C-alpha cells in the first residue's frame, strides 16, 4: 500500500517537473524568438525619447546695464485630439481669441491625419491672450463642462526688444527660427544662440541619471550708451524734418579706444515687428547706413588729405598757397566750391574756406604714391572690421585700376571719386584726435558666460600719421572752426571739425541740385573724448553742410557732453590744476 502511494507520488512529481520544464523551455523560446526582438525594439522605442534642449538666447545690454534685447514668454496653443470633446466649441473659443477664422481652426481640428494626437493651432501667442483662454477653461472646468477639454498651452521664450526701435540698426533682429539678422544679432549669432543639446530622456524614473546642463547663450554688453543713443536718434529725426533731408546717420564714438557710443540711422524698425522689414528697406545695405551705405563724402575728406600732406612734410601749417580759383590736374580743371579765387592762404585757411583747389594742389605735390599710400594706411577702401554685420568696404580707386584717371588724384583730395562709409571716415579721422593712433571701431564691451565676464580689449588699426602731425592738425581744425564762427561750435568747449558738402554722382555726371551734407568733429580738443559724424542725404532747405550738418553736430555735442559728464574746458582745467 505504502509502495503504491510512493509510485503515484513519483509520477505526480515527475509530471509537475515536466510541466515546469515545459514552461521554462517555452519562456526561453519566446524570449529568444524573432517576434521577441520586434517587441523588445518596440519597448525600447517607448522607453524614452530624444529631446532637444535649446538654450535661452543670450541677452544684450547697453554699457550701463540697460536691457536692449531680452526674452519673453509666449505660448504654443494646441489641442490634444484624443481629449477633445467638441471641435465646434473649441474652434469658436479659439477663433474669438487668436484672430483666426472659425473655419480655419475647425478644419485643423477635424481634418488632421488619424495618426495625429496633437494639433498646434497657433504659436507665439501672447501671455494676455493665453490668460484669457485659461480663465475660460477654468470656468468651464468649474461647471464640469468638457467642451474645451484637450486645450493645451506650451510656454517657450521669444526674442523681445524692450526699447522697440531704439538702436535697431545696431542690434539687428531674430526671426522665429532663432536666427539673427543684421547688426549684433547676426554678427554674434553663434555666441548668443548657444549650443542646443540633444539628450535621451528615459521615461523610467530609475534611469533619470543626468540633469541636462544646457548653458544659456552668451550675454553681451555693448559699448552703446542707451540714453545717448535715444538723444541722438531724436536729434537725427528732428534734423531730417527740419532740413528736409531724405535719410541720415549720426555716429558718436570714443576716439581713444574705438568704442561706439551711439549709432543712429534712418529708417529704423520696431524690432518686435520685424515683418515690416520689406516695407522699410529695399536692400540689406540700407539697414544700417552708417556701415552699409557708401557715398562720396566731399570736403570732410580734406582732413585726411591735409593730415597726409603735413605728415609727409609736403607742407606745414604756415605754408602759403596762392589760390587762383582753378588748378589743372590730369588735364582737367578743378575749381573751388564757389568758383572764386581766394588769394593767399595758409593751410588753416585752406581748411577753413574748404578750398578744393588748395587740396588738389596738395595731393598733386605729394604725388600718387605718397597720397594713395596714406589713404591706404587710413583704411580707405577697406572695411573697418567693426563687429556689426553688413559692413561695406567702400572704394578707393588707385593708379593702375581700369577706372582710375590722373584727375582722380586731384578730386580724391577733396572727397570726390572716392566712396566711404561714415564709420570709415570716423575711424580714419580718429588718428587725428588720438595722437596718430587709429582705433578700430567696435560695439562689444564685454561678454558674460557661466558667471564670468570677458572684456573686449580695444584694437588699433595702425598709426597712419605721427602724434605731432595729429596735434598740429587738431589745432588747425579747431582754429578754422572758431575763425569761421561755425554753427558747429559749442559754448564752453573747444572743438575741432570740418564740414563736407558733396555733390551726388549720377549716371550722367554730378547732380546739379542735390548734395550730401556731412560733418566730422571731436572734442574737447586738448583731450578728445568723443567724436561725431553727421551725414544727411539731400537736404532741401539748404545744400550747404555749414547750414545743416554743422548745427546738428553742435546739438549732438551738447547732449554728448551732458550725458558723458564732460565738464566745460574751464572746469576741466581747474580740476587738472
Amino acid at each position, binding site marked *: 500500500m505504502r509502495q503504491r502511494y510512493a509510485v503515484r507520488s513519483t509520477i505526480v512529481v515527475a509530471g509537475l517537473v515536466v510541466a515546469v520544464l515545459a514552461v521554462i523551455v517555452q519562456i526561453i523560446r519566446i524570449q529568444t524568438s524573432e517576434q521577441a526582438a520586434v517587441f523588445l525594439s518596440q519597448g525600447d522605442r517607448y522607453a524614452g525619447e530624444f529631446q532637444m534642449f535649446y538654450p*535661452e538666447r543670450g*541677452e544684450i*545690454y547697453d*554699457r*550701463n*546695464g*540697460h*536691457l536692449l534685447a*531680452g*526674452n*519673453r*514668454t509666449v505660448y504654443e496653443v494646441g489641442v490634444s485630439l484624443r481629449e477633445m470633446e467638441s471641435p465646434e466649441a473649441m474652434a469658436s473659443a479659439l477663433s474669438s481669441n487668436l484672430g483666426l477664422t472659425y473655419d480655419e481652426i475647425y478644419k485643423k481640428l477635424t481634418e488632421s491625419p488619424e495618426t495625429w494626437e496633437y494639433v498646434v493651432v497657433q504659436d507665439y501667442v501672447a*501671455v494676455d491672450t493665453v490668460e484669457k483662454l485659461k480663465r475660460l477653461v477654468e470656468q468651464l472646468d468649474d461647471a464640469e463642462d468638457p467642451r474645451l477639454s484637450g486645450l493645451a498651452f506650451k*510656454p*517657450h*521664450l521669444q526674442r*523681445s526688444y*524692450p*526699447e*522697440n526701435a*531704439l538702436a535697431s540698426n545696431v542690434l539687428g533682429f531674430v526671426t522665429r527660427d532663432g536666427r539673427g539678422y543684421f547688426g549684433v544679432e547676426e554678427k554674434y549669432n553663434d555666441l548668443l544662440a548657444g549650443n542646443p543639446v540633444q539628450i535621451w530622456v528615459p521615461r*523610467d*524614473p*530609475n*534611469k*533619470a*541619471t*543626468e*540633469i*541636462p*546642463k*544646457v*548653458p*544659456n547663450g552668451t*550675454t553681451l*554688453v555693448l559699448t552703446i550708451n*542707451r*540714453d545717448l543713443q*535715444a538723444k541722438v536718434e531724436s536729434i537725427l529725426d528732428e534734423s531730417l524734418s527740419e532740413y528736409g533731408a531724405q535719410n541720415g546717420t549720426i555716429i558718436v564714438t570714443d576716439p581713444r579706444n574705438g568704442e561706439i557710443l551711439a549709432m543712429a540711422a534712418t529708417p529704423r524698425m520696431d524690432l518686435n515687428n520685424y515683418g515690416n522689414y520689406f516695407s522699410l528697406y529695399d536692400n540689406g545695405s540700407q539697414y544700417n547706413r552708417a556701415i552699409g551705405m557708401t557715398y562720396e563724402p566731399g570736403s570732410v575728406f580734406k582732413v585726411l588729405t591735409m593730415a597726409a600732406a603735413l605728415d609727409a612734410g609736403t607742407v606745414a601749417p604756415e605754408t602759403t598757397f596762392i589760390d587762383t580759383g582753378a588748378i589743372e590736374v590730369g588735364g582737367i580743371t578743378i575749381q573751388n566750391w564757389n568758383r572764386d579765387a581766394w588769394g593767399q592762404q595758409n593751410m588753416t585757411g585752406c581748411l577753413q574756406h574748404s578750398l578744393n583747389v588748395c587740396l588738389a594742389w596738395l595731393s598733386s605735390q605729394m604725388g600718387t604714391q605718397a597720397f594713395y599710400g596714406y589713404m591706404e594706411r587710413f583704411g580707405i577702401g577697406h572695411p573697418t572690421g567693426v563687429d556689426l554685420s553688413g559692413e561695406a568696404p567702400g572704394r578707393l580707386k588707385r593708379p593702375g585700376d581700369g577706372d582710375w584717371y590722373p584727375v582722380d588724384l586731384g578730386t580724391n583730395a577733396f572727397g570726390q571719386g572716392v566712396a566711404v562709409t561714415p564709420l570709415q571716415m570716423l575711424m580714419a579721422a580718429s588718428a587725428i584726435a588720438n595722437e596718430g593712433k587709429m582705433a578700430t571701431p567696435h560695439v562689444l564691451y*564685454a561678454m*558674460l558666460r*557661466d*558667471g*564670468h*565676464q570677458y572684456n573686449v580689449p580695444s584694437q588699433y588699426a595702425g598709426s597712419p600719421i605721427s602724434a605731432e602731425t595729429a596735434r598740429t592738425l587738431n589745432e588747425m581744425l579747431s582754429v578754422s572752426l572758431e575763425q569761421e564762427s561755425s554753427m558747429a561750435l*559749442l*559754448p*564752453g568747449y573747444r572743438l575741432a571739425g570740418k564740414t563736407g558738402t558733396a555733390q551726388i554722382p549720377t549716371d550722367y555726371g554730378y547732380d546739379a541740385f542735390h548734395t550730401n551734407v556731412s560733418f566730422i568733429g571731436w572734442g574737447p580738443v586738448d583731450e578728445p573724448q568723443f567724436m561725431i559724424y553727421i551725414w544727411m542725404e539731400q537736404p532741401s532747405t539748404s545744400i550747404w553742410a555749414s547750414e545743416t550738418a554743422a548745427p546738428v553736430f553742435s546739438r549732438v555735442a*551738447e547732449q554728448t*557732453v*551732458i550725458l558723458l*559728464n564732460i*565738464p*566745460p574746458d574751464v*572746469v576741466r582745467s*581747474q*580740476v587738472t590744476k
Partner: protein
Amino acid sequence: MQGQATQIIHAYRQAPWRVQRQWVGVFLLVVVGAAMVAALYLDVTARTAVTGREIQELRIQITTIQRETADLETRLADLTSTAAMQRRALELGYRPVLPGELDYVAVPGFAPPEPAILLAAKDTSPQTDAVPAEYTQSLLEWFEDRIKFGGIR
C-alpha cells in the same frame, strides 16, 4: 548500559520528526533571507524611482523658473525703457537739463560705478554636474562598488 545510552541518543538524532524540523528550519532560513534581500532591494528601487521622479520635476521647475526670470527681466526693461522713463519724468514735471544749468564738482579719486550686470555676472545654469551615485545605484551596483573599492559608509 553504555551501548544502550548510545542507541537512545542515536535514535533521538535520527528521529524522523527531528530531521524534518531541520529541513524546515533550513528552508525557512533561506526564505526569510531571500525575503529580506527582496524587501531591501524593493525599498532601494522604490526610493530611487521616487527620487528619479523628483529629479524630473525639479528639471521642469528649473526650466520654468529660468523662463519666468527671463520674462520678468524683459518686463522690467519694458517698464524702465527710455520712452517710458521719459514719459514718466515729464509727467512728474521734470524737463531735460541745459548745459548752463549743470554744476560740476571735482571729487578726487571718484570713479563712476560699473553697471550692475558687470558687477554680478550671474550664472543661471544648474550648478550640479551629475546626480550623486546614491540616487542612481542599484543594490547590486552598490555591493559591487563596495567590493571593488572597499569600505562601507
